[in-house]
């Protein structure tokens, strides 16, 4: 059950990472670049507003599954880190914990800023919150993979 949930958490994280990265790049894409036929331009040409609800759902699911897995982390992974005296690994997880919580409570503002019709007054909020959430998800994903690598198969 634990392994299945870790796998599910990881897979949903990948989907979230992809969606947020697409949106973060699309929201800052300049129109001239967006007309180019290159791969990067096509990647950035997506409609950023189309991702917002999916991102809210994926983010909530990732944090929820992470919250369910958290006691196992405290019972299994954290003691290993302490035994190996890997303080920095513990520290990066503590940061992941804070970013997950802050990201979760920022979702209502993020969702409101992306509601149709888009309000011009919120354009900086859209860019800012999208990049903040994308940075959080990248950090959390890398830290998660790092800790799994340190602990190895459970």
């Amino acid at each position, binding site marked *: 059950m634990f392994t299945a949930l870790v796998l599910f958490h990881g897979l949903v994280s990948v989907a979230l990472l992809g969606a947020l990265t697409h949106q973060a790049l699309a929201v800052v894409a300049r129109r001239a670049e967006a007309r180019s036929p290159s791969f990067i331009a096509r990647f950035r040409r997506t409609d950023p507003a189309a991702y917002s609800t999916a991102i809210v759902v994926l983010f909530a699911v990732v944090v929820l599954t992470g919250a369910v897995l958290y*006691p196992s982390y*405290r019972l299994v992974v954290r003691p290993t880190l302490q035994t190996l005296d890997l303080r920095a690994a513990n*520290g990066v997880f503590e940061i992941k914990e804070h970013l997950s*919580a*802050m990201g979760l409570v*920022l979702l209502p503002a993020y969702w409101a800023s992306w509601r149709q019709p888009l309000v011009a007054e919120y354009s900086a909020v859209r860019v*800012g*919150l999208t990049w903040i959430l994308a940075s959080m998800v990248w950090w959390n994903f890398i830290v998660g993979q790092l800790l799994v690598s340190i602990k190895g198969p459970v």
Partner: protein
Amino acid sequence: MKTHGRLMIFSLVACVAYTLAYYFEWSLFQYYFAQNSIGGFWEEGGASGPPILWYGWLATAVLAGAAAAGAIPQRWVARLLPDLLWLVPIVLIFAALMYERRWFM
């Protein structure tokens, strides 16, 4: 638009409240994972083993955000500077990094 403003107040206040909650350890409840039991914020731990405070910090933040979103008058909500919604989280993320640098010394 009224709902949007209140959602934004929720996020802003909850984000600040979460930061205060972990800094001052204002956990609405504690989860003792070794015992699989929950204790209120008024209860002393110790015998039940180490607690997880994160759930309680998050609950504190959600409660504070919901209270603010419901209680703040609409005219104040309308005056909210939109840029605070991304500037404040950046400051709070920086604060979290500063707080956790103890692990890297």
